[in-house]
């Protein structure tokens, strides 16, 4: 049985990007938000350190300096007009959050306080600058709560614990709606709409060590990919240098912004050798690679020699209590380490997808090198690729991306639905979804999804992580093929309708396999090193051949076709990336 609902606009995902778009949309058209979690449980809430904007509250700053840092941080794969736009609009976006009640930390004179963050500098790289607006080390929590509060105020319609399982487009490619699965009942719902905004987040769960929530399985990118839309720069995945050892739980870069340092087993502050100017505040890709190098040269600690250490024990305890309370608690709870007294074991952790669904600066999904707009389809946040993060996102720019492009996508979609008629879905649009679910539910014996997931995560961590090579990626591609064969035969034990999380996790595993396919395909052909993508067999950046975005298409026969599109340049000429 299916129920049909009709709205002007649908937002899929209840994190920061989705909620920000919904605020904009709900004031102007009939809007619904579908979220597979209760929205306040979205992973935006786990973001810690801050959100950057050149307010200049503490030190002189300018949006243009912020744009430069964003482009350089992204190793010049950033579309420069988008970065200039984002950093310009950042200032008003932060004031807007404050006026909606976000409890930022304050300066003595009552303004929004700001602190240092990796890769953010004064006047094109001279020295670190205080640009990150923050609320202790729970900035993401405060943004998520504030945006949800504003949605409650506006009485936004939420469908909580509804999983989107298909994107509906008509023969002309116009967006018609989506199919969703109601977790509580197992019912399928058809949602018709003129505009659909995907805001489903990242896909870090394809790696064994990750800061990402279990829910981050690349749902939006995989769904649109299956419907013929390419994915952009999927090989660009950020590995954050300071994850709790073994667990990957994030320890914010704010720890280094407040003066924390990274040490090897010999107690050496090794970033002084890799980034002499800004040292521990170098961008994440560089610190993660430096850690890898230290480990490779035998200066890692821990039982396997694959840890280094984050030391904040020299900081004033009241600063830690006021500004870094949560991450201190994580170390105490999960590693039984007291950060006030001893260094905390860390290792790089899969953190953020720079790539995703290609969009323009209004959040509209665009296809191909000519950027043809898909009518009525939008994407924002981590699932999207504008591209403002290029090959390596700067810390704090993810939260900024959500509020700036969430607003812009909502605004554009609201205008779009005013000028557009509701298109009609085909008869029984839920049929492909039914077949997918019945296929999984129908098998009584078969492969175990848990084992496939673990093999995916272990191998992606070993073969497609901080350091990659032709050999490791080709091996991973073979493994992915065999994992997919096994996935086609997967059987689950829960056959019920009510809260069948067994079924949903198995669908999510399929999404992860798709995203891993695209990531590895892009990484294999990109024979250079740029930002987070480091190939030990091609260790240098190659602007002559690779200053371009990857577009990966899933063909009908299951193969992957790679195309490219140019990077939109601007005032910043690519130069060697030194800090």
């Amino acid at each position: 049985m299916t129920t049909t609902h009709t709205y002007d606009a649908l937002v899929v995902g209840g994190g920061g990007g989705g909620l920000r778009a919904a605020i904009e949309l709900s004031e102007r058209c009939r809007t619904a938000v579908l979220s597979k979690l209760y929205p306040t449980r979205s992973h935006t809430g786990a973001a810690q350190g801050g959100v950057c904007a050149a307010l200049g509250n503490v030190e002189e700053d300018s949006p243009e300096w912020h744009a430069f840092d964003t482009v350089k941080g992204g190793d010049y794969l950033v579309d420069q007009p988008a970065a200039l736009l984002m950093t310009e609009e950042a200032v008003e976006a932060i004031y807007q959050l404050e006026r909606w009640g976000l409890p930022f930390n304050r300066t003595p004179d009552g303004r929004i306080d700001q602190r240092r963050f990796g890769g953010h500098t004064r006047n094109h790289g001279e020295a670190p600058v205080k640009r990150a607006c923050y609320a202790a080390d729970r900035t993401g929590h405060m943004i998520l709560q504030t945006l949800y509060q504003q949605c409650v105020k506006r009485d936004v319609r939420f469908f909580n614990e509804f999983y989107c399982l298909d994107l509906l487009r008509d023969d002309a490619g116009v967006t018609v709606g989506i199919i969703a699965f109601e977790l509580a009942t197992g019912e399928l719902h058809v949602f018709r709409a003129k505009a659909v905004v995907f805001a489903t987040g990242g896909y870090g769960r394809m790696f064994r060590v990750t800061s990402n929530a279990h829910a981050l399985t690349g749902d939006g990118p995989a769904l649109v990919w299956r419907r013929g839309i390419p994915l952009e720069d999927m090989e660009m995945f950020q590995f954050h240098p300071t994850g709790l050892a073994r667990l990957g739980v994030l320890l914010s870069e704010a720890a280094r912004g407040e003066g924390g340092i990274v040490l090897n087993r010999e107690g050496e502050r090794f970033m002084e050798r890799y980034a002499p100017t800004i040292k521990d505040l170098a961008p994440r890709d560089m610190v993660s690679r430096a850690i890898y190098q230290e480990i490779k040269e035998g200066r890692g600690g821990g039982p396997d020699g694959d840890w280094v250490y984050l030391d904040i024990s020299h900081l004033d305890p009241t600063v830690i209590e006021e500004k870094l309370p949560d991450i201190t608690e994580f170390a105490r709870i999960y590693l039984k380490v007291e950060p006030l007294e001893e260094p905390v074991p860390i290792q790089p952790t899969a953190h953020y997808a720079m790539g995703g669904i290609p969009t323009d600066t209004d959040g509209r999904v665009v296809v191909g090198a000519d950027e043809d707009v898909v009518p009525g389809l939008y994407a924002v946040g981590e699932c999207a690729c504008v591209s403002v993060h290029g090959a390596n996102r700067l810390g704090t720019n993810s939260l900024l991306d959500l509020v700036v492009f969430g607003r812009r996508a909502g605004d554009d979609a609201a205008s779009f639905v005013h000028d557009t008629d509701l298109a009609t879905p085909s008869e029984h649009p839920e049929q492909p979804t039914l077949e997918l679910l019945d296929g999984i539910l129908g098998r009584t014996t078969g492969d175990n999804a848990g084992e496939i997931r673990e093999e995916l995560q272990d191998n992606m961590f070993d073969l497609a992580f901080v350091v990659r090579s032709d050999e490791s990626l080709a091996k991973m591609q073979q493994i992915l093929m065999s994992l997919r064969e096994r996935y086609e035969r997967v059987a689950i034990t829960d056959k019920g309708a009510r809260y069948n999380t067994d079924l949903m996790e198995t669908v999510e595993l399929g999404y992860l396999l798709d995203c891993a396919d695209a990531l590895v395909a892009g990484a294999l052909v990109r024979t250079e090193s740029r930002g987070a993508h480091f190939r030990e067999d091609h260790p240098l950046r190659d602007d002559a051949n690779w200053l371009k975005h990857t577009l990966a298409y899933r063909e009908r026969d299951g193969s992957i076709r790679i195309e490219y599109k140019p990077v939109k340049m601007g005032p910043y000429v690519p130069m060697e990336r030194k800090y």
Partner: protein
Amino acid sequence: MVTAADVLDASDQARPTIDTIPLTVRVRRFNPEVSEDSWWDEWTVRCDPLERLVEVLHQIKWHHDGTLSFRRSCAHGVCGSDAMLINGRNQLACKVLAQDVAPRVTIEPIRGLSVLKDLIVDMEPFMDGYRSILPYLINDSGEPEKERRQSPEDRHRYDDTTKCILCAACTTSCPVFWGDEGYVGPAAIVNAHRFIFDSRDEAGRERMKILSEKTGVFRCRTTFNCTDACPRGIEVTKAIQEVKRAILFERF
């Protein structure tokens, strides 16, 4: 040249066997598609002593019984999905380690909300309570060009209650909430406190009026269960007392 693979191989060879410990996990199950009554299931698994309980539940779900159902997402105590009654106390399963409860742990759904399946409860009555106290900043005095100013002291005044993640551990540990469906419960009051004591907000009186009704703050019997249960360390009972006092003396 040493390759990534060499490093990883060396690392794998150096990896010592972790001493795992046995843990018997007893879970109260419920699924109306199977039975009208709840039942108990028990599994004994071996795990790393530092393994999070939520990952032990995953181990059971992914390798022993896929029908075991629970909510979870971030797995490090910030999303609030996996509040459960663990050995008689409301806790987040991702903040309890195997060594804290070994050799045996009993897990039940949080109380006072209808159980829908296994450890999953109906969150809607809880969210209704939250929505009832106007959980958003209200200030109709016009918007400044930049930010509203707030002194660090005024910001600090409501800091504790901004930490709430709506996990329901406090509300479902409250005996008054178990017995009285109308009571808004501690989490709603915590979120009202967050705005009542925010110097930028102008609707404190309105919220206090809502909370002075019979479903409101004076239902609280000060048992401190809520404070003990809060995984974010919020002094919930203190916040409730401050709201009570503000209502009685209109001092806020």
